Structure formats: structure tokens, C-alpha cells
């Protein structure tokens, strides 16, 4: 299975993960500072900033784009409960 490395900048921790996993599934287990609310892409609580490798995450859906807009996300902000890891990337809480 394809692997990728996701780095959580706030705790300076890198995790080797199977490609396709959602960021939140890793950040929760490792205890990174990204927090979460509904986990369904609705509330915007788990907004994170992609420091590096933003195109190594799956494209945001129309719904995620909408939630990001409503929460005044800046460039390269994503929802950790929606973004799936497909290549190496570095993230931190937004």
C-alpha cells in the first residue's frame, strides 16, 4: 500500500501513514494540536493550515470549499476531517 509522511509542525512529529487516510485520524492519535468538532465537514472547527505539500492532499469538495469560505479560511487552509493524505505534507492548526 502506498505510504506518505505527514508532519505535524506544532509538535514537530512526523508519521508514516497509509495513503488515503484523513488527517484527523492521524492528528487525534498522535495528540497534535488540531481540534475537531462535528467531524463531518460542517462546523469548521478542525481547520488547519497546510505548510507544505498542499497538493498532496485530496482536492476539497464543494461543501468543504463552502465551509472554508464561511470560516474565512486563508490560502492553503483545509479541514482536517475532510482532507485525505496522498503524499508528503506538513500541517499545523489554523
Amino acid at each position: 500500500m502506498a505510504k506518505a509522511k505527514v508532519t505535524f509542525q506544532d509538535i514537530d512529529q512526523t508519521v508514516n501513514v497509509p495513503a488515503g487516510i484523513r488527517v484527523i485520524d492521524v492528528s487525534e492519535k498522535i495528540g497534535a494540536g488540531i481540534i475537531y468538532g462535528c467531524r463531518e465537514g460542517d462546523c469548521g472547527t478542525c481547520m488547519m493550515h497546510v505548510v507544505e505539500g498542499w497538493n498532496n492532499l485530496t482536492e476539497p469538495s464543494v461543501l468543504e470549499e463552502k465551509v472554508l469560505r464561511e470560516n474565512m479560511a486563508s490560502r492553503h487552509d483545509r479541514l482536517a476531517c475532510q482532507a485525505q493524505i496522498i503524499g508528503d505534507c506538513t500541517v499545523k492548526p489554523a
Partner: protein
Amino acid sequence: MSSPGPEQTREQIAVRDGNAVEIAPGVHWIGAFDPGLRNFDMILRTANGTTYNAYAVRGSDGVALIDTVKAELADDFFARLEQVATLDEIRVIVLNHLEPDHTGALPELLRRAPQARLIISKRAPAMLKALLKPTEDQFDYELVDTGDEISLGDRRLRFLNTPYLHWPDTQCTYLVEQQVLFSGDVFGCHYCDPRLFNDRVGDFRFSFDYYYAHIMRPFKAHVRDALKLIEPLPLKLIAPAHGPVLRERPRRYVTRYRELSSSGGSFDQSFDQPFDAGDQPASLIIFYLSAYGSTTRMAEAVQAGAESVPGLRVSLYDLEGGEIAPFVDLIEQADALAFGSPTVNGDAVKPIWDLLSSLVGISLRGKIGAAFGSYGWSGEAVPMIEDRLRGLKLRVPVPGLRLKLTPTASELDNCRDFGRQIAEAMTGDANPPDTAKRVIDFAELSPYPEAGASSSKLATRSEP
């Protein structure tokens, strides 16, 4: 005293039949009294009810309304409104925040005064849509930010963006010429007295502080940010969204917010820690309960391990010997919390849950959490506590530690190691700078290791 429902006493009926009250030239209170309320939002007791304060501001170029009331009291609101303005005169409706107790009459108001333009803060649109839902007709709104103004002809409304006081979309509205601050829930309290003005009503200081403690305290950093905007304003009167209108010494209430947002709960500001400012050690608090002493011994070993890391202050508390409220104050000021609980019939014990369900009034974001405990059969308490800690937005960087019944010497070593790992996560020593970058494999992230197993579940390997 029994809790009377609405319309039960003569006094309450008199209150409901009341008039609009002029609080400043051309500014009327058109809110509603709710004297029968005994509990607000499930988190606040309201010994003499509350008020929902709405205001009408008349300018030479139309009328502005500031907030409305909760839906059940809409009739009172419209009755008072119609005493001071006709519906077609209403040009703008300012919503200082969109909580239903202040926007309950909004749908009906928009039906009756469709020409009125909604003025909301930049964080409010998503909430407005959720509030009015798509069944409502299309409505128009304008977003405002700090410093924006709206003219009513001979007077201006200026806006102050004050997020998280106590909703994300909260703003305050300042009537520039009259120096009146419509502060929303800020400086408010649940205190119902038809005499309305702070120099006429009973002693409401308790209600004022109690309201702050339950509504604003979780957002104290935001309170301090908002005060930077509010303190420079000349203030003749503060018109909050709940409780008395503050016309006598209004600045005293601003000062009180400064005092409350600068201190740590019940700890008076003057009761300093025995450290110089800037020299405060990171604080870890270990709470535990124990049936037969095993979890106590674990807690003591965790404490010893944590204390082996310099720059840390570790406090140990048996939850059986304390009250919730002072523990909440301690937790607010701590950097990390560890909870030790035995497992009884597949659950952590009640005092743990009592404490963990009493933290709604403080901010826990960014704190570190950890759980440990001894068990007889199955040991569910530790993962359940960890789940709760994550739900409370704590970070749980060190996997929980549990052991079966009596701790052995080597298991107590693991407890000391566990304490040391928590301390290192707090002081930032977890990633020694001289080693190559740590990479963990996802498969290694089993969240609930046994104490007897390898203590270093955060097993790491160096990059090749």
C-alpha cells in the same frame, strides 16, 4: 420559594404590560422581562429571572433597532416597539450576536418590516442562515467590522468587532453622539427588575460576576482584546442585552471586566505564586482516586517521574478529598492534567466524570492531558478518560497507562517513565535536538498500551 411560571403574579403581569423606557434622548428600551425564568441555557441559575434588552434609536433619517428578544416574548417587544416607532420607519436592525434569546423575534420583525436592512458582524452570515433556515424569504444584510459606521442622519452607529464575547459573531454597537454603548451580552447579567436602571434596581453585583464567570470566563483572552476597544470610548451609558441598564458610573463595569479577566477564578490577583513574573514553572496537576491503593501508588510514581524533569511544578490531589470549584480554578491555570482512576464495572469512577463535566466555564485549549489507572478485569477507565480529554480539546500526547491490580516494581518504573514523558511533552524536551527527525509509523499508534508492555509506545526510529 417555588418557581412561578409566567403570568402568575400581579407584579409579573404589571411588568408585562409595561411601556418602552427612554434611556437617553431618542433611545428607548423596548425589551422584555422574564421574571419566572430560573435556569438559563442549562448552565446558569437565574434566581430572579432575566431581561432581554432590545433598543430603538431614533435619528433624523430613520430608526435603528438593536437586537430583539426571545421568541416567546415577541409580543412584549412589538408592543413596546410600536409605542416609539412605526414599522415603516425602521431602517436598520443591528444584531450584536445571533443567539436565539436576542433573535427570537427576528423572523416576525422581518415579516413586519421587510424594508429593514440587517447589520451583522463579519462572522455572522453562516449563523444567520442557520438561524433563519432556507424556508425564510431572501433577506438582505450588511457586514460590518470595527470602525465601520452607519448614519441615521444626525447620529451615527459605530461598530466594534468583539468576537467570542461570548459567540463568535459578537459585536458591540456605539452610538457616537450620545456616547451610549450597546454592548450585547458583554456587561450583562441575568437580573430581572422592572426598575431597569443600575441605580434603581436591587444589588445585582453577584449576578454580574456570576454571569461573567459562566459566560465570559472561557473567553478571557478575547475579553481583554475587546476591552482594548471599549476602554478608550467616552461612556455615558452602557446598554447591555441582559439585566440592568448601566447609567450610573458605567465605567465601573468596564473596570470590573478588566479585573475579572486578569485574575484566575477565585484566586485573587494579589495572591501571587511564590515566583517572579516570567519565571513561573510549568504546572502539572495529577488528580486520582483509588479503591485499594494501587492507583494511589501509580499516581505517586507518576508524580516522582514528572518531578525528575526540571522546570516543572507538580501537584497531587486525591479527588475524594476536594470540592469541584477550587479544582476548576486550579485546572484553568495548569499546563497539563493527569487523571488516575480505577475501573469499576467497565467505567471510570463518578468523581472523575463530575470534575470532567464541570469544565465548561474555562478554556482548556492547548493543555496536555493524560490518564492512568489500575484495574481488576478490563480497564476501560483509561481510554474513556482519554476520549473525554480529547473531546475537551486537550492534547493527549502520551498514551494512557494502565496495569492490572497491584503494581510491581517494574510497573512502577513504567509509571515514573509515564510521568517523565508527560513532563517532557510539557517542557518541549520530547524531541531531543541531537537526534534525527522522529518518524512514527501509524501502526505503532495503538492508543491504549498495557503498563507491563514496552513503556515506550511512542517508539521511534531514525530516518535512514
